[in-house]
């Protein structure tokens, strides 16, 4: 156990600046096309990688990419996300991931505690590393900024803080106050879904931003999935709308409804009937119910489009109608 503990603690320690710079200097940052298929994109993730996941809860979750990684048989990933929803269930149950770094993990507030999450954590099959929501953000931000930590003023005093020896208390040299230094999080790879980007990876996303811009900047590699690929000309017409610059990005996958059954701001709301069916199935029996879902909806379909077929056009259209309503105001 202590062995694993050390290994896992090392996962959390920030890299030295020399290493961080060396790792980045090796990356090809030239302006070049990066469009690949969903299946090809899975090659950018290796077993055991730390993976940063964009969006939050049921919003802009890169579900299609997660789905593809599970199908590709990835193992022992350490997955970090601000707030984890059913994406986390799938990652744990498929054994793609054995370590979740987040502030909150359940399918959604409407459904109580995820039985799938409970099963995996309580039986020790996987580890849940808990940070406060702001601490998650500050860890990505420190990673994005190329600094080894960020000082924060929460997590002090609480047991959330006590469980995280990876963070260090300090007395401020200016004010003599107590601060908590949370270590930078520079994931091996980030998965981010956006409304639109160009073939180079210049990404623009609308509405809720979550931590995605910092995550992209912090990661060693970025895989973008996107509702649609637009021309570089379109990007250059409104450069102040670009949130992720191309040189952080390694792969671009065009994937309509790429967050299904979660939502993509302004494009579709969550597919709530599918979500309710899912939660009901897996929480009734977090092992068999989950396996049934994986077999039928993850391993079963030949393609992402076939998975969408299983959700059904009616629910997709309904979700899209609701999603677009954000612009009715």
């Amino acid at each position, binding site marked *: 156990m202590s062995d694993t503990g050390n290994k896992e603690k090392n996962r959390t320690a920030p890299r030295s600046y020399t290493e961080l710079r060396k790792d980045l200097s090796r990356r090809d940052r030239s302006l070049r096309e990066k469009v690949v298929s969903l299946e090809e994109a899975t090659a950018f993730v290796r077993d055991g990688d730390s993976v940063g996941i964009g969006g939050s809860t049921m919003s802009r979750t890169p579900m299609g990419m997660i789905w593809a990684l599970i199908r590709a048989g990835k193992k022992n990933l350490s997955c970090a996300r601000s707030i984890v929803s059913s994406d986390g269930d799938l990652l744990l149950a498929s054994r793609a991931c054995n370590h979740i770094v987040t502030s909150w993990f359940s399918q959604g507030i409407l459904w109580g505690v995820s039985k799938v999450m409970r099963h995996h954590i309580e039986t020790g099959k996987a580890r849940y590393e808990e940070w406060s929501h702001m601490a998650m953000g500050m860890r990505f931000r420190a990673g994005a900024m190329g600094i080894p930590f960020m000082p*924060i003023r929460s997590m002090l005093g609480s047991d959330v803080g006590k469980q995280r020896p990876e963070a260090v208390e300090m007395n401020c040299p200016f004010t003599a106050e107590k601060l908590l230094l949370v270590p930078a999080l520079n994931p091996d790879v980030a998965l981010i879904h956006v409304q639109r980007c160009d073939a180079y990876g210049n990404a623009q996303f609308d509405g809720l931003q979550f931590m995605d811009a910092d995550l992209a900047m912090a990661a060693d590699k970025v895989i973008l999935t996107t509702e649609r690929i637009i021309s570089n000309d379109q990007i250059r017409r409104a450069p102040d709308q670009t949130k992720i610059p191309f040189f952080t990005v390694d792969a671009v996958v065009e994937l309509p409804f790429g967050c299904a059954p979660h939502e993509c701001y302004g494009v579709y709301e969550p597919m709530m009937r599918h979500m309710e069916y899912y939660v009901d199935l897996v929480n009734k029996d977090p092992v068999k119910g989950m396996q049934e879902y994986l077999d039928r909806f993850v391993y079963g379909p030949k393609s992402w489009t076939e998975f969408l077929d299983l959700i059904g056009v009616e629910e997709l259209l309904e979700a899209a109608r609701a999603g677009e309503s954000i612009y009715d105001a």
Partner: protein
Amino acid sequence: MLKAQVHTAAELLTILSARELKNGQVVFAGVGIPLLAATLAQRLNCPSLTILFEGGVIGALIEPGKLPPSTNDQRCTMRANMVLGSAEVLLLLQRGYVDVGFMGGAQIDQYGNLNSSLIGDPARPKTRLPGTGGGNDIASLTQMIVAMKHEKRRFVEHVDFITSPGFLRGGTTRHDSGLVTGGMHRVVSDLAVFDFDEKDRRMRVIALNPGVTREQVQDNTGFKLKFADDLGITGPPTDQELKELRELDPERLYIS
């Protein structure tokens, strides 16, 4: 008037917590009853109440019947004044722009500490709960209002795990740990309204809900309660409060 008294515990909780908010305040609201109560207050007598959501929203105006399933969904942003990153909105707490943090809770102790993380050994919990979310940040950085169902197993002497800090072990322990600001301001349950003693920082009943006795509150609480000298009685929900509330949640997602 008679009609007004026919209400659920959740409705009472929502209405009483709404009353704790003041016009002009900036309130950071969790999903469920806090979101509903803040929106209710905004529609009743706090038109310039500003509601923040963890997903990255400032100045939300929730539409009746369109309650969002979480504070990270696009429905939270409808007609907001600003949509920003989730780290950014949490940093507003740290900078000090927020008057009140407003959350629900599953388990609270005599010092106002909340547990939403786990029961048992942290390394291998007996029951793993969802976790802090922004709860720890909100409770660490601003004045808190907590709305809770009153049950003995929820009001415990010591929580298994301090997810969101109240006054920690009482007295000055919160301040000593580096949390120099904020703290538990009010707890609202379906039985009573509570504050915390200024010295020892233990929970204290300041008002009983209509028809509730001291004994009832104590019997449903897992630790010895203090009662304020000038113990009050909360006014029952008014017709207007109930009408507005039911319009907000016509599907009774949170108020049944």
